[in-house]
């Protein structure tokens, strides 16, 4: 088994927000006690609820935020305590693709300046063949012919083209880990396929690892070694087969809500009647945070917050009291 390159222990990020009236500050637990190991060279998908803390987790890993609680370690060294040299190594070895490419690209820099800036800072190539090198990076993400894009500013690019510049910028440094927040969301399936191929080529040649945040469950199923499902600041399930055998009721809900490319589909046009969750209106601060939406909730779920724990003998971990019962009830025949 590979050593973890990044590991999180009890990591929380608590934002404070001013309440509507008055000056009281209320805490927002965006990430709430996450334990997670990211292994060298693996592709880990992070999927889940919108607003569940995925981007916040990415910012923590990129040292853009400091965790309110808990520790993050890089090859066993706590990020907090890295000396100057390690810190700069870290910044080179862990690269980012942000969720909103238009705001992560400098609006006053052309594509060429953006890439050249990164290449120079890390003295990647000699000045002589730099232009060829940069052109090759653009071609790799499907921006052809590359010369057409060199002199453009971000606002002169389409959403998907901006996204690909951000990807090119991250991979050109040949880092150890790439943390990519929704890197495929503005790309058509044919460019997506090309980027997914590029990623697996890079893995084969450089053993780079990926942490990919995405809502595209199909794409993640095709590329991830493991997937973590987040709900309200927590990892509620993690494993290598969550798409085939989901263990948490929320994971099931996510999978069931996918749309099929079938024009006779009826999920949007005539949705099935919603079945009310048994505990939908119960107030509790101590129980499971999925309680109010869970069709399978029972007494214990309202009383005790389930912790992430191994399920059976497999590699899956799940935070649900009833995981065994429920997965036994729906195993494939």
């Amino acid at each position: 088994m590979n050593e973890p390159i990044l590991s999180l222990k009890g990591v929380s990020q608590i934002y404070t927000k001013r309440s509507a009236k008055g000056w009281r500050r209320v805490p927002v637990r965006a990430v709430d006690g996450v334990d997670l190991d990211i292994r060298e060279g693996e592709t880990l998908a992070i999927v889940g609820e919108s607003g569940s803390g995925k981007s916040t987790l990415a910012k923590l890993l990129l040292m853009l935020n400091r965790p309110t609680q808990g520790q993050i370690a890089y090859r066993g060294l706590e990020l907090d305590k890295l000396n100057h040299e390690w810190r700069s190594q870290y910044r080179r070895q862990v690269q980012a693709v942000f969720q909103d490419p238009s705001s992560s690209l400098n609006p006053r820099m052309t594509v060429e300046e953006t890439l050249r800036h990164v290449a120079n800072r890390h003295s990647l190539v000699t000045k002589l063949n730099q232009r060829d090198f940069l052109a090759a990076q653009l071609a790799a993400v499907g921006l052809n012919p590359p010369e057409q894009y060199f002199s453009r500013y971000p606002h002169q690019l389409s959403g998907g083209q901006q996204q690909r510049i951000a990807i090119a910028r991250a991979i050109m440094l040949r880092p150890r880990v790439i943390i990519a927040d929704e890197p495929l969301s503005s790309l058509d399936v044919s460019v997506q396929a090309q980027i997914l191929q590029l990623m697996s080529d890079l893995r084969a040649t450089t053993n780079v690892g990926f942490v990919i945040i995405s809502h595209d469950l199909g794409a993640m199923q095709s590329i991830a070694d493991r997937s973590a499902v987040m709900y309200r600041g927590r990892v509620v399930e993690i494993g290598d087969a969550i798409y085939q055998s989901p263990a948490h009721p929320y994971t099931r809900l996510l999978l069931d809500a996918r749309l099929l490319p079938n024009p006779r589909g009826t999920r949007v046009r005539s949705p099935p009647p919603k079945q009310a969750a048994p505990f939908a209106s119960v107030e509790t601060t101590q129980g499971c945070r999925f309680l109010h939406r869970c069709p399978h909730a029972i007494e214990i779920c309202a009383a005790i917050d389930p912790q992430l724990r191994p399920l059976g003998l497999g590699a899956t971990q799940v935070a649900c009291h009833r995981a065994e019962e429920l997965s036994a009830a729906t195993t494939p025949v």
Partner: protein
Amino acid sequence: MTIPQSQQIGNVKHLVAVKNLKVHFQVTDRIVRAVDGVDFHVNPAECVGIVGESGSGKSTLVRAVSRLMPNLRVKELSGDVQFEGRDVLKMSEGDLRELRRSRGFSMIFQDPLGYLNPTHRVGRQIAEALSPHGNVQSDSQRVQSLLEEAGFQEPNNVARSFPHELSGGMRQRVMIAIALARDPKLLFADEPTTALDSTVQLQVLQTLYRLHKERNMAVVIITHDLGVVAELCDRVYVMQTGKVVETADSVDLFERPKHTYSARLVELSAHRSSFRGAQYE
């Protein structure tokens, strides 16, 4: 108002009719033909999808039609764009504002951060869209229900937040709520659900579909997700390098794609969803 025959394009019954639209940009010494001779129409109460290559001109098309092209260096903008028989490209700024205000069209942008006001709480921004000069207090009920329709479970919390305090998908839903607040006759939605998880996406699309049916709201949706097209749209345009290469009823696109690029899109999406072959149930 009667419209002289000479100004009408094609079928007067169209809500939007676009003929031979060209939008060319100048980048240093090169001309980018972002939209290059596109014919396009939307019938009243119709739901139309636009799919296509990244960079094929989808966002530019929709922006030109709604005349939302702030300070861009446009080399050429030509063709006819009519909204209910009125020429949008030649309309004065005042008329355009009036059209937007009086239940004309709303737009959901591809990148919400650029269009939300960072200094106002989102509740206020939605209330302003509800009634530009109205009483913000009395609208708070409506604001809440709009946020619920956009898939929020705690609308109160969200209404009190500033845009930077929200996640990417939450901001996207706020844009949706703002667009729907105007009660438009026509909604342009540029990748409105890319940052949403599948359950919220489903909920938002169900809302759009319901408003589409109940209020006869026409919808033009740009998306890379053929599942969205399949389950929501009546008709689809497929774009490649500034041109429409195919237009078809949804069913026909999926079952009998004519253009090779459309066929590839359909095939790749089917392949992607076939990962579910070993369905867990």
